[in-house]
């Protein structure tokens, strides 16, 4: 029965070895694909950064502050539909959860399925809108404009708002950041607004709508770059771990194989020896 188990274990080990080798091939190719997508995303981000930073300047220079009202908070959580990218989605989900726990009167607009899955269980009634089909292709301004338009036409009102996304720092690190969003009333009541000449509510409305799209676009670009670099790192680690498992399994396989051979030899020899002594 020891010998039967030896053979069966051998087969099991070889099946396991084959499957881990396949997994390693898959994670390696995912890493290559992510590396290519990351290079492209980083290039586009570099071109989008002046635009995104420029879009935030007015709110800083005019010293716009959140409205004092009771209309609640709006969070736009930027993520994507695809996983296997490290802590990118879970860090956003965690922050949204603590935020909702602190301010129950919060509406969340989710860009991407992953964060929706995180929030669905406990905070389904705070989810105002979900955007899907995110992450397959690089974001263009039109996508952000579409999301901004949906938010505006849904008539969501808020006193304070923020966009939550992962700002790209380096290939190996990203930072979960928030960008403030201000309602039209907040802009109209800004302390330095009287400094700005000839503004009417039409101009303020057009300006805030356009800057919502611009800020969303910028956060999508930053998040996409963080996601690709994070996926690259995650898949690289997975390949390394798979490699270690393969080494260990190969060792076990060889040892088991040698043990089986040794057992067979022992049986043959002791059988032959028994025959000889009989004679």
């Amino acid at each position, binding site marked *: 029965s020891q010998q039967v188990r030896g053979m069966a274990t051998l087969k099991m080990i070889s099946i396991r070895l084959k499957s881990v080798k396949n997994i390693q091939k898959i994670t390696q190719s995912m890493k290559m694909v992510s590396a290519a997508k990351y290079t492209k995303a980083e290039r586009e981000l570099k071109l989008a950064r002046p*635009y995104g930073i420029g*879009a935030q300047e007015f709110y800083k220079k005019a010293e716009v502050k959140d409205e004092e009202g009771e209309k609640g908070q709006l969070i736009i959580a930027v993520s994507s539909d695809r996983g296997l990218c490290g802590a990118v989605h879970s860090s956003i989900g965690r922050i949204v959860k603590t935020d909702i726990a602190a301010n129950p009167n919060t509406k969340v607009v989710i860009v991407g399925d992953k964060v929706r899955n995180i929030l669905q269980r406990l905070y389904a009634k705070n989810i105002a809108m979900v955007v899907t089909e995110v992450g397959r292709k690089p974001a*263009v*301004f039109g996508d952000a404009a579409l999301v901004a338009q949906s938010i505006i036409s849904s008539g969501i009102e808020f006193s304070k708002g923020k966009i939550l996304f992962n700002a790209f720092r380096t290939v190996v690190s990203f930072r979960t950041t928030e960008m403030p969003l201000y309602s039209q009333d907040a802009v109209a009541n800004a302390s*330095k607004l009287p400094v*700005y000449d000839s*503004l009417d509510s039409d101009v303020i409305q057009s300006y805030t709508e356009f800057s919502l799209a*611009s800020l969303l676009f910028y956060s999508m670009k930053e998040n996409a770059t963080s996601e690709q670099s994070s996926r690259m790192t995650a898949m690289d680690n997975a390949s390394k771990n798979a490699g270690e498992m393969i080494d260990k399994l190969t060792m076990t396989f060889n040892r088991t194989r040698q043990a089986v051979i040794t057992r067979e030899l022992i049986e043959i020899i002791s059988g032959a020896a028994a025959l000889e002594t009989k004679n």
Partner: protein
Amino acid sequence: MALTRSALRLFSGRFTQACQVRGYADAPSMSLTFAAPSQVLYNNISVKQIDVPSFSGSFGILPAHVPTLAVLKPGVVTVFENDGSTKKFFVSSGTVTINEDSTVQLLAEEAVPVDTLDISAAKELLAQSQSQLASASSEVAKAEAEISIEVSEALVKACE
């Protein structure tokens, strides 16, 4: 005298803070950030003047312009750089912000140098949008066609 003052500005950089109260001839150049979502045209570059087409009329921005916000109309933006050269760009839409400290953020949805425009393609686009308006059924389709006409008319004008 203006020559020596500008020479002073060239060499002493930050020390000109004390000299700034002299008058408009010495007004600091303004810092322009002119960008579109997929390209950067000027990133905090000091320029002399910018002409922008906006819905409240086309206007020129000089250093120490009164702070304001404006929405861009399809048209040509002209940037007069410090070395005297002029560059023209066609913008489709966007916003312009002029802040108290003379920084200008010109955020355009699409911006292309005028010399890359093809007048025949622009005229074709105009004809297309006009036929679109004629065949438009809903209010939304009509508005979209009108926007298309506005942009293509401005494109044709920019090419001429």
